[in-house]
């Protein structure tokens, strides 16, 4: 996939936290949406617990949080379509492509430096 994927953009947001347990994921997605609204080309990389953000069937939870699944639905509207995930993290949680809300390209560890180098700004949440 490495040769066919466009690895460049203005902003790469790396999401490493699951929904609900903290505000990291929501605040990271907010930064991505704002950047896109400002006309920047934005890519997202779901790493570690962050892959859980992509899991289907999320509720809003008993903690009174709004959750982030609805925000993910809005990504396409903001032209955020370069989505990447760490396939090892996905496997660790027993998830496969069929369990995801949105298609994200599996990014092997060897391609990670190229993805990061291809973006002018990287924000990690």
């Amino acid at each position, binding site marked *: 996939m490495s040769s066919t994927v466009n690895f460049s953009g*203005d*902003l790469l947001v790396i999401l490493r936290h699951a929904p609900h347990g903290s*505000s*990291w994921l929501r*605040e990271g997605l*907010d*930064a991505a949406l*704002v*950047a896109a*609204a*400002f006309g*920047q080309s934005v890519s997202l990389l779901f790493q570690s617990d962050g892959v859980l953000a992509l899991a289907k069937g999320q509720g809003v939870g008993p903690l009174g949080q709004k959750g982030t699944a609805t925000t993910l639905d809005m990504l396409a509207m903001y032209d955020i379509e370069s989505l990447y995930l760490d396939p090892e993290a996905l496997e660790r949680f027993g998830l496969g492509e069929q369990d995801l809300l949105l298609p994200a390209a599996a990014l092997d560890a060897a391609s990670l430096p190229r993805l990061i180098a291809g973006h*002018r*700004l990287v*924000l*990690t*949440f």
Partner: protein
Amino acid sequence: MRYGLLVKGAPYSSQASHSALRFAAALVARGHRLKCVFFYHDGVYNAARLAAPPQDEPHLYDAWRSLHDEHGTQLQVCIAAALRRALLDSREAERHGKSGHSVEPPFELTGLGQLIDLGREVDRLVTFAP
């Protein structure tokens, strides 16, 4: 070079603010320009004007202010992250019917768009997270 800092750790709870301030001091000492510090996530607590740490500990709030006074560094706070965490300037306090305010200049409540702009304007944006 022109630098910006993004601080995401609460003062005293994590190393983030301490490290960011030391990095800031090193930058200006070497002749770089520190344009702005942007506070996001729990980092917004750095803007709480009522901070009263023990006298034998670093006064982080005053240190941020000095950075502004001495080097013209802007101190910008994400308004969405701030309001949730009880950090309101006088205008927001009035708008929300609160009797006091917890943020005052040189700290400014501002939108996330400012962070994105900062990322565009500086040569390096360095994050300090917990």
